[in-house]
């Protein structure tokens, strides 16, 4: 860890004023469940660390005219136990539960989850987000069992966010603030696949703070997530699928199917969504949707098994969504 200045602002404006033009100027500290590890491992070495947990405006879960507003510093545990969330968003509850460490649920935040750096072991061992050595990807011929089956360009890592697949399926947006104003971005557009060294994995600039998540109401629709996990104890999903189904009676009017942990961004499986439109969810239909969702997968040398996992996750998420309570 390199020495840094610690700042503890109490307002958003103050916090924004403490950020710089480069990521190395300042990092944001929320739950700290991962940032501290990145600092200690010398992957992040900012000059300043800006704690945003003292900013009251960034907390809280409230009802809005169109749905819910979740503050960026709401903890995973608070989200999981919130009555408004429980009432409409089983996919978020299930994703929260999937973060199977009480310590991380108690400290980690929803904003932190969305901006979680990839778990790629090349990245974590200091080889960078694109894991390049002498102009070649270390991932392609290397230990890629946990890597992308939907890679984008040179980005073979997988998005680490637990909530993103569900939020993309739900059509959620994030609010991002800078000193000059606030913008709203669809969660589906929030994640980026870097094309060259130095680019990040999300649409958040060094001088910006993710302030809140806006989730449209899920009344009249069904949502669910299925994560394939090796362990019950704390572990990252091997693959996940989140679904959001707008229903007309017993059949699907429109569907959004999103794969998680299979690409640098959550993968919106449009073919699966189209296939589901107008159908009732049966085991067979769910199976077909799973196949459609992974049809474009490009697995690497060691991760072909993840194609099946993603396919099964779609099937199980769909069946879970329409399961009678």
């Amino acid at each position: 860890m390199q020495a840094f200045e610690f700042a503890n602002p109490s307002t958003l404006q103050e916090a924004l004023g403490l950020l710089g033009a480069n990521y190395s100027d300042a990092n944001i500290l929320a739950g700290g469940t991962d940032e501290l590890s990145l600092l200690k491992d010398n992957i992040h070495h900012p000059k300043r660390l800006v704690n945003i947990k003292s900013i009251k405006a960034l907390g809280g879960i409230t009802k809005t005219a169109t749905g819910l507003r979740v503050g960026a510093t709401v903890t995973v545990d608070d989200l999981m136990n919130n009555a408004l969330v429980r009432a409409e968003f089983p996919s978020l509850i299930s994703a929260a539960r999937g973060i199977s460490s009480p310590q991380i649920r108690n400290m980690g935040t929803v904003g932190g989850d969305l901006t979680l750096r990839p778990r790629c072991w090349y990245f974590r061992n200091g080889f960078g987000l694109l894991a390049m050595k002498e102009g070649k990807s270390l991932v392609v011929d290397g230990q890629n069992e946990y890597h992308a089956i939907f890679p984008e360009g040179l980005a073979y890592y997988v998005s680490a966010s637990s909530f993103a697949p569900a939020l993309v399926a739900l059509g959620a947006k994030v609010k991002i603030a800078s000193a000059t104003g606030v913008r709203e971005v669809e969660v589906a557009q929030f994640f980026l696949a870097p094309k060259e060294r130095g680019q990040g994995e999300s649409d958040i600039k060094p001088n910006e703070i993710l302030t809140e998540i806006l989730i449209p109401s899920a009344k009249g629709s069904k949502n669910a997530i299925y994560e394939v996990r090796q362990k019950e104890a704390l572990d990252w999903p091997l693959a996940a699928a989140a679904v959001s189904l707008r229903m007309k009676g017993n059949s699907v009017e429109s569907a959004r199917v999103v794969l998680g942990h299979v690409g640098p961004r959550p993968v919106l499986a449009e073919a699966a969504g189209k296939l589901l439109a107008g159908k009732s969810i049966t085991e067979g239909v769910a199976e077909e949707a799973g196949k459609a969702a992974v049809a474009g997968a490009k697995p690497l040398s060691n991760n072909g098994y993840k194609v099946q996992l993603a396919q099964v996750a779609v099937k199980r998420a769909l069946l879970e969504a329409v399961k009678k309570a």
Partner: protein
Amino acid sequence: MPNYNWPPMESRRVMGKRVTRLDGIQKASGKAKYNSDVRPAGTIHGVILHSPHAHARIKSVDTSAAEKLEGVTAVRVVAPAGTEIQWAGAEIATVAARTEEIAHDAVRLIKVGYEVLPHLVREDDLSKAGSRAKPAGEAVTGDPDAAFKQADVVHEGVYGIPVITHCCLEPHGQTVAWNGDTVEYFPSTQNVSGIGGDLAKGLQLAAGKVHVHMDNVGGGFGSKFASDLWGLEAAKLSKASGGKPVKMYLDRNPEQTIAGVRPSVYAKIKLAAKKDGTFTAWDSTSWMTGGFAGGGLNADLLPYVYRQVPNRRINHTAVSTNNGAQRAWRAPNHPQVSYITCSALDDLAAKLNMDPLEFFIKNANLTAKPDVYTSQLKKAAELIDWKNQWHPRGDKRAGVIKRGLGLAVGMWGGAGHASQCRTNIHPDGTVEVELGSQDLGTGTRTVIVQVAAESLGLPMNAITLKIGDNSLPVSGASGGSTTVGGVSSSTRISNLNALEKLFEVVAPGLGVPPDQLEAVDGKVQVKGTPAKSLTWKAACQKLGVRTISEMGANDQRNPRGLNTGGVSGVHMADVSVDIETGVVKINKVVAVNDCGLVINPKTAEGQVYGGVIMGICSALMEERVADEGTGRVLNADMEFYKLAGIADIGEIVVHMDITPEHDKRGVVGLGEPATIPTTAAIANACANAIGVRVPTLPLNAKNVLNALNGRRLA
């Protein structure tokens, strides 16, 4: 001379009882101090600079900037220019500084010039090993070629179990300080009596100049016997810093790359049987790596337990890779050879269309202990309801969750190590039992006090036990499951020697010769005559101002029947496999183990629970992921180096095989045999559930789905 024999099974008052471990509450509540908690006044911090390259020659090391950093007290070069580095994580230099953060900053200021050389860090594909492969030659008994020709059934398979790490929760390290020309040493060790001399040798000091203290150790599993480079460096940094205590522990990454691993084993195995299930021949070509030095596998153990198969051919190759060296890992060789042997035997039974339980029993005459294995196989089968739950290969029931049963066997030595104990009986009636031993978390403290309470006729709380200090009588390192046999025997002998002295003082007053006295129920009395007695305290008062202090030793050449070696064990597993995701869940593991005379069934069971859990982790999750592209271990952490949590281990049923026959053999160690068969039992249960063998562990989603889909395993 006293009669040192253990009291008869039926008349023991303290031994054999389910006593709760004495340090349990302290450990569970955080009061127990580990040496990584120890921070004497004035402690400064040591940090190591590790090589990022798996194979390189050091061209230059420039420490000038580090030396100038404010707060740095010493910088030492471990690998000077010209040194050839053979694994990533190898130590290049060390720094001591006022704070750990400054020491880390200083390490980053050291400039090292490397000439990077080609490396090999993976051994799973032997064809890529080239000259790094070192065949050990062939060993043949009987006539395997003829036996395969004559066989009714022949099975061939490939099996692999990867390198795993020790993953000690308390990493390797120590605090060391100089006090004049002596050294105060607080290591995390399995070897309290021996490690001080080891450090002294490195420092060119007389052995007695190093004083070792350690109350508790947070895991060793065979990896913490020596003072290691970091012990020596911490001592030298301390000396260079005016003798200040230097605390230096490995970070998690080096802990799992340079502080020891368990070697892998891969094997192509061919084996044969007669139609009736008689196992007739074994032919194995195995390879493994134990790191750069190569290390070895005792391939002569093959086929494991069923070693007396009449025809066998063994070929084994050690591959030297650019990885940190292997160290003993809870039952060196045995879990791996149990896995490859029991998997292959299970596959042979499947090919014979035979229930593996029947097969393992039928061939028990090929083991060293046919009766013991037969009875343990039957007991385990009863506990897991084998008769009703077992089905032939492949669960044919509908649904994606397939359930299966599997079994495996183990064996171990575990005779007591050399151990000396001193018993002090004071005139005030207080008693001290002193040994330079250590409690690795196994319950050693508890069993020593049970033995002393039994031998002296006192309650356990009347005994003060002193361990964890090398100024106490020398006792062996805790390795090879030798501790319990050693310390129980030396304690028994020392206690009775001290008691004999007490009887000599007390006897005249009670009007009988000393050999007519006994110590029971807190009294010294004429044998069988409680009316003619003195309370323990009154008896001790007769000592006047003299303290009795008597030694006792476990002599390995003549353990007097108090301890012995040689144990068996059978584990069975019941697993469920999701054939769509490849995720394996443990429903139940049954463990039947014997360990001779069991001093404390509760702590013995605790050992088996721990052993089974380690076996589950190895079966389902653990592998060191070495990467050819970077030469690094990519999962030297506790995130992608996966270990089971409580929810992952299922139900564990432990049955200690306590019988008069085992009891009369004396005490035998249990720590290692407790883990040996679990992994293989789970692998066989998985094969039974899904109908195909997953040849390479761990049984993770990738390997299970690849096996189900017939994909080549990478």
